[in-house]
């Protein structure tokens, strides 16, 4: 299972803070993003950053391990 997390404006557009997605061997962050953005296009319109296990990831060709925690995030506005 992959735990997918959403926060703030993305969570609001999706209507929830988390989703679980089945893991497939060789699955890349880009695959996960493509699948979810087909279902939630309005939310993914504002996604700017991706994190895997709490770390910023810039290269979405990263292969996801089973049990990974992935966050798709809008631009931050803390501070």
């Amino acid at each position, binding site marked *: 299972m992959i735990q997918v997390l959403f*926060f*703030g404006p993305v969570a609001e557009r999706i209507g929830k803070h988390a989703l679980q997605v089945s893991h497939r061997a060789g699955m890349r962050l880009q695959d996960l993003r493509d699948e979810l953005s087909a279902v939630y296009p309005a939310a993914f319109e504002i996604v700017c950053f991706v*994190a895997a296990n*709490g770390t910023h990831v810039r290269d979405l060709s990263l292969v996801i391990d089973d049990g990974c925690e992935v966050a798709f995030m809008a631009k*931050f*506005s*803390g*501070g």
Partner: protein
Amino acid sequence: MQQAVRIQQEDFSQDEEIRALQASSKRMGGIATFLGCARDFSEGREVSQISFDAYGSMALSEMQSLRLAAIEKFALLDARIVHRLGTVKGGENIVFIAAGAEHRRAALEACSWMIDELKQRVPIWKKEITPQGDCWVSPHP
């Protein structure tokens, strides 16, 4: 003494934070701080409250690594970062950053760098609650 990097609901005291910072070294000649507060007016709209959402665990670890990076980059003697979550009213404190160094230049530059980096790196989102409705804030440059 409280941790140097914290995410918390409750307000903080600058005097206490500064005292904790100063306690780390008597060679500290300059301390620069930045305090971000909730304005009651933003982009022409009245704002009654600001509420926050955060990826808590990642936000904390990003703030911790930001502190260490600043200490190394500017040769600081110490630094502290506190960010509030939950809901804050107009005029209330949101974020506090303090940098202590032997001389003022390093402290001032580090403080400015840390708040810029925090806004870039730390997964926290603010929503302005106004009489006309709620609105997630688009980050300012």
